[in-house]
C-alpha cells in the first residue's frame, strides 16, 4: 500500500480496458457453448481475446508491484477489508488462470490454437483427451466463479462510490479527481 489516493494511470487504463474485455469474454463464452449458428464466430473471438487478457493481466501485475495501489480507507470494517483483499487475489488468479487453462485444454485436445490469420499458438500440454476431459469443466466452473466475483466487485465498487463515498471508487476512475475528505 502507499500514500497515493489513486491507482496510477496505466493501472486505471488497464482496469477499464480489461473490465470490458473480460465481461465480453464471459458473455462470449457462455453464449458459445450453447450456440449453433454463431459457434465458430464466437470461438474465433474467444481465443485471441483470452490471450489478450492474459498478456494484459501480466502487465497489470507488473505495474501493481512497481506502483502499489492506494490504501483502503482506515474506517473500513475488518471483514470488508479482508473480503476486498481476498477477492482481488482471486480476480488476479482467474484473470491469469482462465486463459492458461483454456490454452492448456485446447493443447490437450489437439486443436490448433489459431488466433486469426495463420497465427497458431504452440501447445503447452501434451495431447491427451483424458487431461482435456478434466480441464474442460474446470474452465467452465472457474469462468462462472469469475463472473460471480465480478458481480460482487461491481456491487462493492458501487457501494463505495454511491453510499460510502470514501474515495475507493474514484481511486480507479479513469479521470482522476480529488477524493472527498
Amino acid at each position: 500500500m502507499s500514500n497515493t489516493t489513486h491507482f496510477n494511470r496505466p493501472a486505471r487504463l488497464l482496469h477499464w480496458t480489461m473490465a470490458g474485455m473480460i465481461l465480453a469474454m464471459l458473455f462470449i463464452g457462455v453464449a458459445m457453448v450453447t450456440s449453433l449458428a454463431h459457434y465458430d464466430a464466437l470461438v474465433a473471438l474467444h481465443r485471441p481475446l483470452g490471450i489478450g487478457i492474459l498478456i494484459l493481466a501480466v502487465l497489470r501485475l507488473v505495474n501493481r508491484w512497481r506502483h502499489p495501489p492506494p490504501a483502503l480507507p482506515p474506517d473500513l470494517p475488518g471483514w470488508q477489508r479482508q473480503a476486498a483483499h481476498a477477492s482481488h487475489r482471486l480476480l488476479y488468479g482467474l484473470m491469469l488462470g482462465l486463459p492458461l487453462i483454456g490454452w492448456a485444454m485446447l493443447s490437450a485436445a489437439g486443436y490448433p490454437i489459431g488466433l486469426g490469420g495463420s497465427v497458431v499458438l504452440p501447445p503447452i500440454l501434451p495431447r491427451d483427451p483424458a487431461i482435456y476431459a478434466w480441464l474442460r469443466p474446470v474452465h467452465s466452473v472457474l469462468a462462472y466463479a469469475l463472473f460471480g466475483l465480478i458481480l460482487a466487485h461491481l456491487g462493492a465498487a458501487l457501494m463505495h462510490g454511491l453510499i460510502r463515498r470514501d474515495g475507493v471508487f474514484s481511486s480507479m476512475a479513469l479521470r482522476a479527481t480529488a477524493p472527498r475528505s
Partner: protein
Amino acid sequence: MSLLDDLAGAGPAMRPRAVILRLGAIAALVAGTAGAFAYAGGWLSPHDLTPARILDRFERVNGPHPGFRRNHAKGLCLAGRFESSGRGERLSKASLFAPGQITPVTGRIALAGGRPYAADAATTVRSLALRFHLPDGEEWRTGNNDIPVFPVRTPEAFYAQLLAAKPDPATGKPDPEALAAFFAANPDSVKAAALIKARTLTAGFADDTFRGLNAFRFVARDGRQTPVRWAFVPEHAATAESPAQGGRADENFLFDGFASAVRRAPVRWHLVVTLGEPGDPTADATRAWPSERPSLDAGTVIVSETEAEADGNCRDVNFDPLVLPAGIEGGDDPLLGARSAAYAQSFTRRAGEPKSPSAVHDAPVAGAGL
C-alpha cells in the same frame, strides 16, 4: 437507520431514503448484469436447439456407446500425404496448394451412424475425414461424405430428421408416418433424399467419391475470394458394388477391403475443387451447383497406411470442418457452425469416457492376400 448505516457505511449526511434508493439502484444493476448473462447463456430460451441437445438425440437414437464418436462411430485410421498440383495456388494462399508442396495427411474412413459395432452395409453413407498438417502448426481438417448433397439444409432439420429416421425396433425401418411428416415439413430434403438414393454405390471406400458438401471460400494471396465446394475423387475407376457383397460374412468387409487395398498399393484421391459463381447456393447443402461450373484438380491425397483406432491416433481427433488454414474460410452455410459445435460436444463427451476397442481391427487375416 443506524443498522442500515452500519451495514452500508453511509455517512451521516445521507438520508435513509437516499441510502435505500441507491442500494436499490446497485442491486438492480447487479441483477441486470446477471440476467443478461443468463440470457446470453440460453437459460431464458430452453427450447432453442443446442449442441448438447443434438448429441442427446444421437445417444437416444443409437443407445449409449461410451468412448465412441456419437456419429460416424465405426472407423479406421489412415495416413499418407497430399501432393499439390499447384493449380489451387491462384485461388487459395494456403501453403498446401503451392506447386510441388507435399503435406503430411492423417485421417479416418468411417460409416455414418452412431453404432460402432454395426455390420458394414453397402448402402450406409461412407465418410472420409482428413487432417492436413501444414507448417507452423496450421491444420486443415475436413469431413467428407459419399453422397451428392446433404440431406438437410438447417441444424433444426437435421435434429428432426435424426428422430424421424430412427429405425423402429420392431420392423428395423423408420416409422413411415414420422418420415412423411418430416419430409412434409422440410421440402428441401425431399429432392436431396432422391438424389442421395439415386447415387451409385461403389464396391468400397477406395473407389468412392467423397464430397465436402458445404460451401467454403478460398482466399487468394491478393484477398480475392471464391466460393468453392470440393470432392475427393478416386483414381481407381469405380466398380459397382457386387451383389455378392450383400451376403458377406465379414462384418467389416468395407474397412477390411480398404486396408487390403492400401497394403497392395497406395490409394489415391484427387482433390477436385469446384468454383461457384454469384447466385450459386452457398448456404444450402441440399442443392448441388450447376454441373457446368469449372473445377480444378488441386492435387492428390495418397493414403499409404491404415491403423486400427487406438490411443492418440485418429480416434482422438475432432475432424471439425472449421479447423482451417489461412486461405480457406467457412461460408454462410448454417450447417457449418452447427457441425463445428456438435463435433466439439461429441469430442468433449467421449474424451472423458472409458474406451473400448474398435470393431475394425488391424490386418484382417482372411482375404488379405498376403
